[in-house]
């Protein structure tokens, strides 16, 4: 049933978003760099290899447990750059603000952006501000773009997963999505779940000191772990097997997911990475990640297998097997 109109599903990061990008945008914008469909583009200028990425932040509510839209806007783009192995250097910031938004709130967000940029070691070097009439935007939207330098000898890309590789997840999943959901006004419960928003670039740099040949890095944001693993399996033409009992989930997050009828593997993260790495360096990488405060719950959650290509299979806790498909649209809460 097609309406000819954009639905919220088009922005969910799942199959509906993917087909819009592949069918409408990729053919028009086509070039070999975009066609890689990685989190950030890798471009060569002279002898320099640069990573370039952009992302827009429209989170509701703007302030949430564990951060605000300003922190997300910086960390998100820093992470997109870091996922290509780059050292993030410079960011741009575009703010679209709704008429009537509190200046004091804007000030908090801007200060947070400054702090997050400083912590991640990046500079905001250009920007833009627009104000639109009331109801033409929801409070504040932020776009950030970023550039980073990719050190020599690093080839990280979604199409490099190989059978025999190990899959490392840097910590608990679903914290961000559940923190946002729980803090929405219509949710009448209190929880202590906080967003995991954080910049992962220093963790990535330490990982690269141990193993230059990391094959794939991804931050499983919108669409969650399940969708990101499907993207990797699809791009690399391999199968992926994960083990349910090795996927860390904060118990409170797990209960809220039960309550709301959501599957945590499809819920957004903002400070976690998935690394696909050669099997024999998995243990040393795991210990590097675990030494980082942001990676203390890291776990080797699975491995890359020959096939079926493009499929993610989960060994369930009770010893069963199921397929983890890509999320279709947004997850809808269930009736009972």
């Amino acid at each position, binding site marked *: 049933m097609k309406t000819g109109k954009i639905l919220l599903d088009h922005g969910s990061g799942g199959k509906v978003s993917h087909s819009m990008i592949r069918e409408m945008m990729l053919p028009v914008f086509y070039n070999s760099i975009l066609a890689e469909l990685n989190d950030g583009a890798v471009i060569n200028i002279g002898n320099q290899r640069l990573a370039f990425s952009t992302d827009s932040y429209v989170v509701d509510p703007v302030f949430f447990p564990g951060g605000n839209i300003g922190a997300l806007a910086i960390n998100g783009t820093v992470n997109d750059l870091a996922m290509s192995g780059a050292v993030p250097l410079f960011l741009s910031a575009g703010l679209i603000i709704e008429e009537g938004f509190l200046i004091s709130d804007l000030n908090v967000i801007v200060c947070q952006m400054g702090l997050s940029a400083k912590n991640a070691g990046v500079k905001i070097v250009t920007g833009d501000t627009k104000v639109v009439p009331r109801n033409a935007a929801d409070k504040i939207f932020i776009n950030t773009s970023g550039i980073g330098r990719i050190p020599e000898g690093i080839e990280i890309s979604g199409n490099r997963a190989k059978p025999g590789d190990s899959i490392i997840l840097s910590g608990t999943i679903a914290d961000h999505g559940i923190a946002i959901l729980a803090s929405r006004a219509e949710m009448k419960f209190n929880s202590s779940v906080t967003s995991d928003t954080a910049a992962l670039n220093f963790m990535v740099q330490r990982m690269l000191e141990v193993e230059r040949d990391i094959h794939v890095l991804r931050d499983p944001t919108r669409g969650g772990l399940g969708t990101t693993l499907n993207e990797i399996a699809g791009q690399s033409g391999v199968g992926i097997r994960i083990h349910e009992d090795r996927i860390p989930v904060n118990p409170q997050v797990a209960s809220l997911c039960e309550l709301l009828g959501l599957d945590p593997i499809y819920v957004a993260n903002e400070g976690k990475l998935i690394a696909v790495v050669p099997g024999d360096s998995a243990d040393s990488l795991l210990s590097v990640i675990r030494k980082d405060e942001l990676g203390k719950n890291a776990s080797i959650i699975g491995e890359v297998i020959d096939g079926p290509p493009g499929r993610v299979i989960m060994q369930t806790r009770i010893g069963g097997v199921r397929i983890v498909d890509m999320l279709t649209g947004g997850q809808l809460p269930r009736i*009972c």
Partner: protein
Amino acid sequence: MIQSKKLCDHERRIVGIKFIEEYRDSGLAGSLVKRIASITKRSVRIMEVCGTHTVSIFRNGLRSVLPQEISLVSGPGCPVCVTDQSEIDAFVAISGLEKIIVATFGDLLRVPGTNSSLQNERANGCDIRIVYSPMDALGIAAQNPAKKIVFLGVGFETTAPAIAASIIAAREMGLKNFMVYSAHKTLPPALEALVSAPDVLIDGFILPGHVSVIIGSNAYGFLETRYKMPSVISGFEPADILHAIFLLISQIESGIPKLENAYLRAVTQEGNPRARQIMNTVFETVDAHWRGIGSIPGSGLKIRENYDWADARLRLDFKIRESLPQKGCACGEILKGMKTPIECLLYKKPCTPVNPVGPCMVSSEGTCAAYYRYNQDVIER
């Protein structure tokens, strides 16, 4: 009625523990699987009535650990799936009325009616809001006195009491702009329709957990006394479901059908009389049309005359055209356990969760959606 007095070791372990994690324990599940395999002698078809069971079975990969002789078929216990197409059309029509806010549980959003869905109407500018409880809809009513708020009442005995309570609360709060479109259904009449139908071949029922919390195990007495149907009330964790399957196979193999309650930590014989009383204060039973199954006597809930000020069917003026079910869609046979989604001509092509043809593909609890998402007929036993 048997309350599992003679407990085997596993049951004793299950009854004695209260937390979810233990029910997902691979050791417990593994030993149940072994026990099931050791007693299974012939081919059986077991229907899990409830959509939440369907999802748990897929999510935990239960089919892949059971002996081949056991086939699990999914029944009519996904509320979205059995909501008639004409009712979806009514929801769509209501959402387009002037000064209306529609409040709904999320599952209903993508369900296709004849020409549209609530999701499409939201993109067309209709004010349709997802709520997690009918009480949230009361809040919306209080904040929008100039608009009418219609809560779409879909669900079984699990949701009906809360929705009844919201109507009572609306009266106490003087919220005259709050109303409910009741498309509620009750499960026991549907089970009776299934066991008495000649074309439905089922050897045993896994009975729903949540519904049973409200109606109590006594409500299913007819399955044992009148129909001699092996039936076990089950919780939703993998060990719960495996335990229920073990009890069912034991009954089938011993030739002694009975009603057993294997969800003792939540379900009593009487259920929750207070919830039922609230439900009965506001609703009365009527015949209801189940998508794919047809009309079942006394299986629907209608708002009583006393509360007709809150009945959206009476208070709103909307028209819907008579609708024909989608050609080729096997949702009806799937809900009765006569077909699996793979046997439907439309499964995957063109019917997918992105563009669902029938309702079983829409709800996350729908059999087709669960097949599509978790199984995809790719996993081999």
